[in-house]
């Protein structure tokens, strides 16, 4: 049975790599490698992210309206707890094994404590393709998981700029990523499934296609970070794979433990294992100007995101199925 599971995992890995989403990411990286003049105009890029965040929110809201509160309490609590623990474990690993200075370790930990919405989406797609059962309320957890890790991370630094913590908090909570997620969720929950049908041809049907375009851009951005990998050193690159692995397996187990379906737990694992590269960098830059973006951005976008996309997600799916039995 262990063997069958290994086969399954390999199968999942391949399955996962040959998908429009992953290949769009790769295409973006290739664009930079061959120095193509391809560029997604900033306005378009912003439009895509507004669309994606709002759409996740709307979908989550509808699901939330259909989920009894009792079913939510477990997952919500687990999410908050993991949001508080993961930045600490990341900090520990980064300063101990990564040999980072306090401020850089803390800044990077804030990223690992938070969550990457696109990793979440890629995981959702992958589980759907693999035919695993998911949980509709997961987008709500994305919103919840986004904030606490950043706060803990900033606190670990112990040297935020004057007024920086407050500014960073506002940046996170009223920042467009959380705002659209929660706003969309409220609209979805208030309107319910029937009324939302009228906007489904925009917010549901073309969703995966839009995700592809977004990943094309992300691939280009990640490629820009790859140049910095050498400077970061092998220790950090290794940690950029190890931390999401540890956090991801932890998250997956916690998900199963609090009653998620296997697919849901795998997605939850991917969330917990992911590192933010939208909300966290902005907050960290504001509060900890002396921390080096070259470290935290390179790790979260250049290492951990592709790692999760290619290896993490299928692994968590296999693991979730394994422990669900």
């Amino acid at each position, binding site marked *: 049975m262990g063997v069958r599971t290994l086969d399954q995992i390999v199968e999942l890995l391949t399955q996962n790599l040959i998908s429009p989403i992953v290949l769009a990411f790769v295409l973006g990286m290739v664009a930079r490698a061959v120095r193509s003049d391809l560029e997604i105009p900033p306005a378009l890029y912003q439009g895509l992210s507004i669309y994606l965040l709002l759409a996740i929110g709307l979908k989550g809201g509808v699901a939330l309206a259909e989920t009894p509160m009792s079913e939510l309490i477990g997952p919500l609590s687990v999410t908050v707890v993991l949001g508080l623990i993961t930045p600490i474990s990341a900090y520990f690993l980064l300063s101990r094994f990564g040999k980072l200075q306090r401020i850089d370790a803390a800044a990077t930990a804030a990223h690992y404590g938070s969550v990457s919405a696109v990793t979440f989406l890629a995981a959702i797609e992958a589980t759907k393709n693999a035919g695993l059962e998911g949980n509709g309320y997961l987008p709500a957890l994305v919103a919840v998981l986004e904030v606490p890790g950043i706060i803990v991370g900033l606190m670990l630094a112990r040297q935020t700029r004057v007024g920086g913590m407050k500014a960073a908090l506002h940046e996170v909570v009223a920042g467009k990523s959380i705002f659209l997620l929660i706003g969309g969720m409220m609209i979805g929950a208030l309107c319910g499934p029937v009324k939302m049908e009228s906007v489904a041809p925009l917010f549901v049907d073309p969703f995966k296609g839009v995700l592809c375009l977004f990943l094309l851009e992300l691939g280009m*951005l990640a490629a820009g970070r790859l140049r910095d990998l050498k400077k970061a050193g092998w220790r950090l690159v290794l940690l950029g794979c190890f931390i999401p692995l540890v956090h991801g397996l932890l998250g997956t187990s916690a998900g199963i433990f609090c009653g998620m379906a296997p697919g849901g737990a795998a997605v939850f694992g991917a969330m917990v294992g992911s590192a933010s*590269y939208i909300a966290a960098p902005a907050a960290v830059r504001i509060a900890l100007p002396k921390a080096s973006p070259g470290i935290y951005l390179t790790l979260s976008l250049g290492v951990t995101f592709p790692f999760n996309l290619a290896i993490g997600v299928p692994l968590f799916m296999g693991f979730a199925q394994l422990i669900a039995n």
Partner: protein
Amino acid sequence: MKVPLTLLTVVSESLLKEELLQLMREEGATGFTVTQADGEGTREFRTTEWEGPNVRIETILTVATADRILERLSADYFESYAIIAWLTDVSVLRRNKFEA
């Protein structure tokens, strides 16, 4: 009647936009013109890709005000952020428009 004034131009990572405008208002700037810009400088790493391109802020003011702002920028921002500022001599028609 043309009168001489100073044009302060600041280019910085866009995350700082609101902060910088606030700082300038505090010191007595009465107006701004803000454009989006891409940039390349001496700093190796920047987060600007994520927060969109740089901002380029222009504000016309008296030399004294410009110097005060420049000093605060230098003290609080030059070291840690991707930012640059320069002064140009200009002439305008309505001096009173540019004094707080």
